[in-house]
């Protein structure tokens, strides 16, 4: 008969009772080997601005489309000294922001903030804060579809080739179609950009109003797409140009209103229907910026 002394019995596993329940996880949820793998992908992405680096995306305790890519990038970058800010559509108090903030509070016990300037790491869905980003900040985007050429060319093998050979002519076909249909470039979010004069990149579904903020930013910008298993990045002080036509230049559109709460005229606004008569109100989508202005 075979010896069975190398069989591990379940009772051999001991839960460390000295730790509170929430800290039975490794710091920031992911194990260190996974973080190492993701950090290597991030470093590669920073070396080739705009290039999509494949990585072995993990299952996260949230559904795809809720920021699994961004969360993995954030988890791999977090240190115990970091102060974390999470925004969803510019707001700190929306579902996605609150749940991800609580997730990191539980699993890493770090400081969190709602104030843009105080954060060392900001994870975002669909906005760049109105307060300019600064040196030594890391800015993480949640990305649903990283491939800007996907709508033109469904084959991934072909889009990889198009990127490697800079065959980007077809990219303008979409903008052409916009102008011929609507008289102007209708694309309002996920507006494609060219990074460092080389790779065409999907900036995630931020409004095109935010596109100019990516250009020459002093912060590190990282993009994580969990379901599609891609990470890409813009290193600090990198040229990011929105695609356009010579006679139809890029126009960072916003609603022609001032914020009804703080009165700001040059921030991105949410349109809110306030009653059954269809009356509407415009307010800043960046809650932190709006609160600060209001309280001044």
């Amino acid at each position: 008969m075979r010896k069975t002394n190398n069989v591990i019995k379940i009772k051999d596993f001991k839960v460390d009772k000295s730790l509170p329940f929430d800290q039975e996880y490794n710091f920031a949820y992911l194990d260190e080997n996974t973080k190492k793998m993701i950090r290597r992908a991030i470093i590669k992405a920073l070396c080739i601005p705009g290039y999509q680096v494949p990585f072995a995306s993990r299952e996260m305790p949230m559904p795809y489309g809720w920021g699994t890519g961004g969360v993995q990038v954030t988890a791999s970058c977090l240190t115990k000294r970091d102060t974390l800010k999470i925004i969803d559509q510019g707001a700190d108090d929306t579902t996605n922001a609150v749940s991800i903030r609580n997730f990191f509070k539980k699993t890493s016990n770090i400081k969190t903030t709602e104030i843009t300037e105080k954060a060392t790491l900001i994870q975002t869905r669909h906005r760049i804060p109105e307060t300019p980003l600064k040196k030594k900040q890391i800015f993480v985007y949640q990305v649903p579809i990283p491939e800007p050429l996907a709508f033109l060319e469904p084959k991934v093998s072909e889009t990889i080739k198009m990127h490697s050979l800079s065959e980007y002519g077809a990219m303008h076909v979409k903008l052409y179609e916009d102008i011929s249909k609507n008289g102007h470039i209708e694309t309002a979010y996920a507006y494609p950009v060219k990074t460092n004069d080389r790779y065409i990149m999907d900036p995630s579904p931020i409004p095109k109003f935010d596109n100019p903020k990516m250009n020459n930013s002093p912060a590190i910008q990282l993009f994580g797409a969990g379901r599609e298993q891609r990470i890409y990045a813009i290193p600090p002080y990198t040229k990011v140009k929105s695609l356009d036509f010579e006679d139809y230049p890029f126009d960072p559109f916003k609603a022609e209103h001032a914020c009804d709460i703080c009165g700001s005229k040059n921030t991105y606004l949410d349109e809110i229907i306030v009653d059954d008569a269809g009356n509407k109100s415009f307010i800043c989508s960046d809650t932190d910026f709006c609160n600060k202005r209001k309280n001044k």
Partner: protein
Amino acid sequence: MIIPLLKVTNLSKSYDNIVGCKNISMSLYPGEVLGIVGESGSGKTTLINCLSGNLEPDRGKIIFNINNKETDFLNISESEKRKFIRTDLAFVHQNPRDGLRLNVSAGGNIGEKLMSVGYRHYGNIRSLATKWMNKVEIDKSRIDDLPITFSGGMLQRLQIAKNLITSPNVIFMDEPTGGLDVSVQARVLDLIRSLVNELNLTVIIVSHDLAVIRLLADKMIVMKNGTVIESGLSDQVLEDPQQEYTQLLVSSVLHV
């Protein structure tokens, strides 16, 4: 001496044990229209796909000589090859749906090649697209319509406009009138013929229809079982075919 625009030497391509084409040698001079005829499975399409870069041949040489610049088509890097295909070659498919983006408007389809060679001025792209729609006899009011709303003949003319707009040096046509009814065929052929004359195009046209070859081609080659069995001026070959198979082809044309 005129240097051939395209020189092919001993080109062979097989699919496992099945011969696609074998030891094909030929040359094509600027402004010439070359017809390739043969029955189904004779290797016409394999040959044209090898020449246009859609297929990698097993053996042989393809040399393009454009503006005194020699390009060894099978020995250049992938990026050079794709650039060459984009700027110097054009391919008109038998089925226009293969050569067009059906979810993009007619103007967008015609303009795509311009944008891929660096045009970034909407107004210019649009006016060139309009000009070409005019040239291929499509009403310019249809410029923003989707190709799915076009008839078969219009689609084929749209595909021709899309391909010719960047004035490519060699144009490949694979049965360009294949799926069209006879009256539409005549119209498309007439269009191709007038464009060839007007723009002095260099064309390789594949067809199993001898009438198409007689109408368009200056020279022709006849293929059977993957090899060239007869070649020469098309009038000569069609009037006085030497090979038994060619004689059969010529005599099998219906005279209505």
